[in-house]
């Protein structure tokens, strides 16, 4: 008699075991992001639809667009917004002009054995607190400060730079320069030097080679550097508070002011949301424009 084949379900499908590894490794960061990133944004988002009772001065939780209306239509805030954008963009351009040659040199020109040391030197300022480094600039830029002592005789350098837009830009460039250098350095280091040799070989001068080959091939680093630099500068309030003039404030200061002094949380929250949206849209457009898939053909 032929043996009847009885599939053993138990053997085919082993008892399901819960695999804890992905749950823990993915769960903890997810929880962290929800707690410290999603929740605050949702909270601020909710605040931005609150309003202030004009009689009692207390916040009411009705749904209101009043804060947004003021944030988007007030000429004063439009002006401050544009000023913030101008200062952030100017700082980014100045930083890029300094960061690119340095990052490129460390990544593509310096001997590989020296690269680690040079990057360490770039990062050393990070060992000192942002605020202390910004205070140091006060000492340098103030009347009869270090800068004036040294180059005071140069026409136009006689006065104090402190509490001016120039001081704010200097402060930003100094504080955030290293995080712009890093991605530029990385992309310069990863670029195959044969591309440069090939361009020379085909008759391109060093300058033409830079324009047609080096610059496009290091553009991912430039883009990452711009993004990493621009975002914190755009929302910054400490640097303009310490180094800038009272008539030249930035959005970050306005937002901090709404929360800390004016106690108009809905308006501060609405300004925050507008800033966040602007940065988000700008980044999406920027990354689409500089999509590596687009550059290298997927």
């Amino acid at each position, binding site marked *: 008699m032929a043996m009847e084949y009885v599939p053993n379900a138990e053997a085919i499908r082993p008892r399901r075991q819960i695999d804890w590894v992905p749950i823990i490794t993915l769960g903890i960061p997810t929880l962290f992001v929800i707690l410290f990133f999603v929740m605050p944004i949702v909270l601020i988002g909710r605040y931005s639809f609150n309003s202030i009772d004009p009689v009692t001065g207390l916040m009411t939780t009705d749904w209101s667009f009043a804060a947004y209306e003021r944030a988007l239509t007030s000429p004063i805030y439009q002006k401050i917004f544009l000023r913030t954008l101008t200062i952030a963009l100017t700082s980014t351009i100045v930083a890029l002009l300094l960061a690119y040659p340095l990052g490129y040199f460390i990544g593509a020109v310096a001997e590989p054995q020296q690269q680690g040391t040079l990057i360490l030197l770039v990062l050393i300022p990070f060992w000192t607190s942002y605020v202390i480094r910004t205070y140091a600039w006060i000492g340098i830029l103030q009347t009869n400060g270090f800068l004036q002592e040294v180059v005071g005789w140069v026409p136009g350098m006689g006065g104090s730079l402190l509490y001016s837009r120039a001081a704010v830009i200097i402060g930003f460039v100094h504080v955030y320069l290293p995080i712009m250098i890093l991605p530029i350095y990385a992309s310069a280091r990863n670029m195959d030097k044969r591309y440069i040799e090939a361009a020379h*070989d085909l008759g*391109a001068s060093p300058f033409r080679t830079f324009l047609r080959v080096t610059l496009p091939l290091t553009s991912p680093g430039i883009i990452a550097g711009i993004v990493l630099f621009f975002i914190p500068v755009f929302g910054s309030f400490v640097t303009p508070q310490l180094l800038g003039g009272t008539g030249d404030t930035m959005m970050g200061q306005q937002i901090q002011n709404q929360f800390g002094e004016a106690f108009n949380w809905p308006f501060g929250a609405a300004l925050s949301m507008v800033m966040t949206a602007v940065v988000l849209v700008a980044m999406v457009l920027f990354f689409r424009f500089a999509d590596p898939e687009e550059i290298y*053909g997927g």
Partner: protein
Amino acid sequence: MAMETMSDVSIRNLVKTFGNAVAVDGISLEVPRGAFVTFLGSSGCGKTTTLRMIGGFEHPDSGEIYIQGKPMGRTPPHARDTSMVFQSYALFPHMSVRENIAFGLQERKVGKSEIKERVQAMLDLIELPHLGDRKPKQLSGGQQQRVALARSLIIEPTVLLLDEPLGALDLKLRKQMQIELKRIQRQVGITFIYVTHDQEEALTMSDRIVVMAAGRVEQEGSAEDIFDRPASRFVAEFMGAGNVLPVQVESHDATSTSVNFAGRAVTVPQPLPDGEIALVIRPEKLRLDSTDGWQGKVVESVFKGSMMSYRVELTDGTSMLAEVAHDDTAHRHAIGDTVMLNFRGNDATLVPGSIGAG
């Protein structure tokens, strides 16, 4: 002086060191116009460094390179009439195939419509007329290789330099590209200087082969010269001679030398080289079913498709490698069989260098 006017590239006493390492140790050679010349050697022999110096990517410590009679000195690559096909191709990843090929002409300020025409002609030459708009990453290795070639050829260099351009391809594609490269070279008539460590590749394509070792030229000649008449033990072994044997000289005159190998006399039609000598005989020149010769025993047999490869131990203990065509004309030997091994003195070569010295 007659040689000079015929040469596209003349190299005189070229020396290049990197730190303490001598990469090129006094090389002199002439590359005739329109020739396909191969620098052949193992890695570190100085072949790539020499090529890079011709292209202007490295500068010699001493010596001089002349291209069509003009000393190059420290002329940068973009001002030289040479072009390099890199081992890694180095196609610009952000440009399409068409843009890559057009690059050199754009830098020479050639008119737009002419560039368009010449790029299309190049795409036809490399037989990829429909792939002009792809990015290099979207092409296969063989296709990238052809684009790299087209990008260099379009600027019509005096000399095209190729640095192991087929190194990254698989064997079948490599064979195909070897024939293709040779076809393109004949078609465009430009001097090619080709660097490889693959002796078969060198034999297939080259008009002249320069065998290099330790920064020096070991031998220079046609493919047949190098293969049939190796000038040194190194070249013989590098070309896969298989049997490099100890011999004693018995007699010699201006045109021939008689030597004793394992108890029998062999007369080789060449004068006696200086110093110690060895006898070189290729495995495929040995016969195993001779009526007369050296008696030996088969100790190893390997089937190689078109060939049977046997290791034979002679009665005096000398081990020899023989290769016999695998067809119905050849008797098949088993391990342990006794064979009568023989070869003609005309097929053998005497080279300087003692056995066991290296």
